[in-house]
């Protein structure tokens, strides 16, 4: 079946602009996660959704970052007033609520110039 999809695959933006990154989870997966992967660093947890609610937003690095999920499916990660340090690969994952395995999408590579 179809895996996790993310769009766009690449995004280049100017410093100060807002960007939206999209994630389509595996059908039927109720849990959805956002991670960030910077060069030379491990994956960094950003936020988690169970259904449409986000019980844990502790990983969001600043108030410029926000995320929402609608219809228990698609999620959007929004970064306002982008900074160069926001440049990274943003990865989305989903899982069945009762299972531990998280399945990842291909990621969105964000470059802030």
């Amino acid at each position: 079946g179809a895996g996790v999809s993310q769009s766009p695959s690449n995004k280049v933006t100017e410093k100060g602009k807002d960007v939206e990154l999209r994630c389509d989870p595996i059908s039927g997966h109720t849990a959805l996660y956002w991670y960030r992967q910077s060069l030379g660093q491990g994956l960094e947890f950003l936020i988690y959704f169970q259904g449409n609610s986000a019980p844990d937003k502790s990983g969001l690095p600043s108030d410029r970052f926000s995320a929402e999920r609608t219809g228990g499916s698609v999620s959007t990660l929004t970064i306002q007033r982008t900074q160069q340090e926001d440049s990274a690969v943003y990865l989305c994952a989903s899982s069945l609520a009762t299972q531990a395995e998280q399945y990842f999408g291909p990621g969105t590579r964000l470059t802030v110039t």
Partner: protein
Amino acid sequence: EDQVTQSPEALRLQEGESSSLNCSYTVSGLRGLFWYRQDPGKGPEFLFTLYSAGEEKEKERLKATLTKKESFLHITAPKPEDSATYLCAVQVGTGFQKLVFGTGTRLLVSP
């Protein structure tokens, strides 16, 4: 603070030369340990989950083992297509499945 350390950072093997990758962890209450494979430009691909010390899982040329402080990913007679970055992650906390990742081991298998 929950920490995951992987070693070595990079490993170069000849085809057929078996070896092991290490993942050591310090966490407050391990709920599970995960191994993923990541190819360049792609998202991590799930390999194994281990839940308790002494547990072992195998898939083709890979075998993962778990102790109370570390996990090993054993690669037997590797092939060039096994070249990738191998990531270790631990599941911590309660109520949801936050993963804390190590920085990975880059494996290159030469023919």
